[in-house]
């Protein structure tokens, strides 16, 4: 199975430059996180990959060929804003969507039965969509994305509306699909999900790429400049250091602080300060910044 190559793609909507010279690659057997603030150009990029719209400039290749009708049949797309035909039953709906992807009826029926079982949804096959809960609809939509056995998957916020148990089930399936050697694009605003799932990331802001590469390498690129401190007594202990500008608190809860060190502040000086200002220290850790911090600082710098 081949890779997806986005090459210097440009998309304009009237005066608005939605995608500005974006290039990235997504390799089979890996999950690529497509990130960016609202309105950054993610959906515009995805619509070009899915061949719903065409780029004004640049090109998009899958397995070395420009995307088109042929690649649509190999593509499973779960959009962020998604829905189902409200008055159709789950079974009719899934068969129809599979047929539109070129799957023969009998084949679709067999695959549908398998996936419904996997998602513990076999009993819903005759139910109308409008009777289903949001979580159930999510699962049906996900099944619809998979019925034609796509080799390229684009999943935009696939976990929205799922409870932790179903989210875990979905995560397992996504990992299986990756291990099968499929090419997966994963778009989300939930950074902890991205950190958990993605091998590579590509961060878009204002239509341009501001950060991309393998997740591990990117995290390494950002210095180990984050300190996690768990303590007892003196919850306002570090306020002075923050006021002086030595650290920036990025997450604060009772007895726990996550701080980014300013240039020239050593982890040791934070520890020294903490030792003399709190009653007890339970944990002190110097680590890489969380992805959400990388996201925010990259977007800020990009603007």
């Amino acid at each position: 199975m081949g890779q997806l190559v986005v090459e210097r793609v440009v998309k304009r909507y009237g005066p608005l430059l939605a995608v500005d010279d974006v290039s990235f690659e997504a390799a089979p057997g890996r999950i690529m996180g497509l990130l960016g603030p609202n309105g950054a150009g993610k959906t515009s990029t995805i619509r070009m990959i899915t061949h719903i719209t065409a780029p004004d400039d640049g090109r998009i290749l899958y397995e070395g060929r420009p995307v088109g009708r042929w690649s649509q049949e190999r593509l499973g797309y779960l959009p962020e804003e998604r829905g189902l035909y409200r008055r159709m039953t789950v079974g009719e709906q899934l068969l129809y969507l599979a047929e539109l992807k070129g799957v023969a009826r009998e084949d679709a029926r067999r695959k549908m039965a398998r996936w419904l079982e996997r998602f513990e949804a076999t009993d819903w096959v005759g139910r109308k969509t409008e009777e289903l809960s949001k979580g159930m609809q999510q699962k049906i939509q996900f099944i619809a994305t998979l019925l034609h056995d796509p080799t390229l998957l684009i999943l935009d916020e696939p976990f929205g509306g799922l409870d932790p148990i179903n989210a875990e089930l979905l995560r397992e399936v996504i990992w299986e699909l990756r291990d099968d050697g499929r090419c997966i694009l994963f778009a989300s605003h939930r950074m902890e999900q991205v950190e958990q799932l993605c091998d590579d990331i590509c961060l878009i802001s204002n239509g341009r790429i501001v950060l991309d590469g393998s997740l591990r390498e990117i995290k390494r690129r950002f210095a180990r400049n984050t300190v996690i401190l768990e303590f007892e007594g003196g919850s306002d202990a570090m306020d002075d250091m923050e006021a002086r500008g030595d650290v920036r608190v990025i997450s604060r809860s009772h007895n726990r602080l996550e701080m980014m060190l300013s240039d020239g502040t050593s982890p040791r000086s934070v520890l020294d300060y903490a030792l003399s200002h709190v009653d007890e220290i339970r944990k002190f850790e110097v680590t890489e910044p969380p992805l959400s911090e990388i996201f925010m600082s990259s977007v800020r710098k990009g603007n």
Partner: protein
Amino acid sequence: MTKIWIVLRSEFVRRVTSKWFIATTVLAPVVLLALMVLPPVVGMMASENNEWTVAVVDETDVLGTRLAERDAPRFTFVPVDTPADSVRAAVLSGRFDGYLVLRDGMLEGDAGAAYYSVDGGGFSLGRRLAELVNDEVTRYRLDAQDVPLDVRAIMEDRISVDLLKLTDGGSAPDSAAASSAIGLGMGFVIYFTMFLYGAYVMHGVMEEKQSRVLEVVVSSVRPFELLMGKVLGIGAMGLLQMATWIVFVVGLALSAGGIASVFLDPSDFNLPDTASAAELVDAANISFPHVAPDLVAWFLLFFLGGYLLYASLFAAIGSLVDNQQDAQGLMFPVTILIIIPLLFITVLIENPHSLLSVVLSMVPFFSPILMVVRLATTSVPFWQVLLSYTLLCAAFVLSIWICARIYRIGILMYGKKPTYRDLARWLRHS
């Protein structure tokens, strides 16, 4: 092509199996029949129960008595001598339905009569009263001149003029009234169905857009295929519904003689009791309009053309809006286009060969209704029908071409309502 077929089949099957479809298919003829049969029946029952007692204030001294002596069905005339005030009071109290003033000079044709009542009397009462009074004045004046009976017979004779249509084999009665009724009926059916099925298309597009299932669907099929599949699928549903109705109407027409004969008494027509239904109907001089098969064929063809033209417009509207309210505003110009031909139907029926009629029946937005009306009422030169249909086909191809471009962009836009300038830009750039 196969994808258009998949969409078409899904749309067709989904709609044809819905309760709504089955209900309208069965109920529409029943409702139509009720609308045709009920008003005359109700009207007959209502007017049969009406009788009027009218006080007559007679200033001519002769006419009142003559009216009172006359055997006028449903009217009782009572000459009164009392002053105007007390007659007025008698009417107000309900003793009389009204009072008629026969003014002095009426007999010479110098004055008119007047009828006073609490409720005004109504149209048909006024007409009957006028007939009666006029007839009586005429008779009085003829009597006064000693006009002989045979002259009066000459005056009362009414000569009929039969309208006949030249046909290949000779001539046939021109059932103008019946064919006008057929034309009117067909025109309204086309109007109604273009609107109804067009609205189906629009709501189908809106539902796909609102439920956001569209984004997934257009990653599998081209928007044009989705649009055509939907329009053709709903069109196929419409044809099935129409065909059902036609079968119903034809069945009704074929059995109409049998039904009518049940209400006829053979002895009224000097026929033996064993007379067949056909003989009875013939004797009663009841004729059922004959609908030519080619008229039915043109009816279906013009319906299809008109449907495709308007459905594409409705689909474009559906793709542009996020809710029903926005749709109303955009639907207004299209609605006007569908309604305009209705205003001209009677003009066309009365004068099917005037320049106005010919031109209007050529305009693509009007021809589905107006050409069918003309075809039903008169014989239209074949070149006119062909030209009209060619124009209609050209119009729907162009309309589909334009609307598909609007649709393609509209379905992916949310929130902002596009202006007409935006639409023009989409057309230029795609």
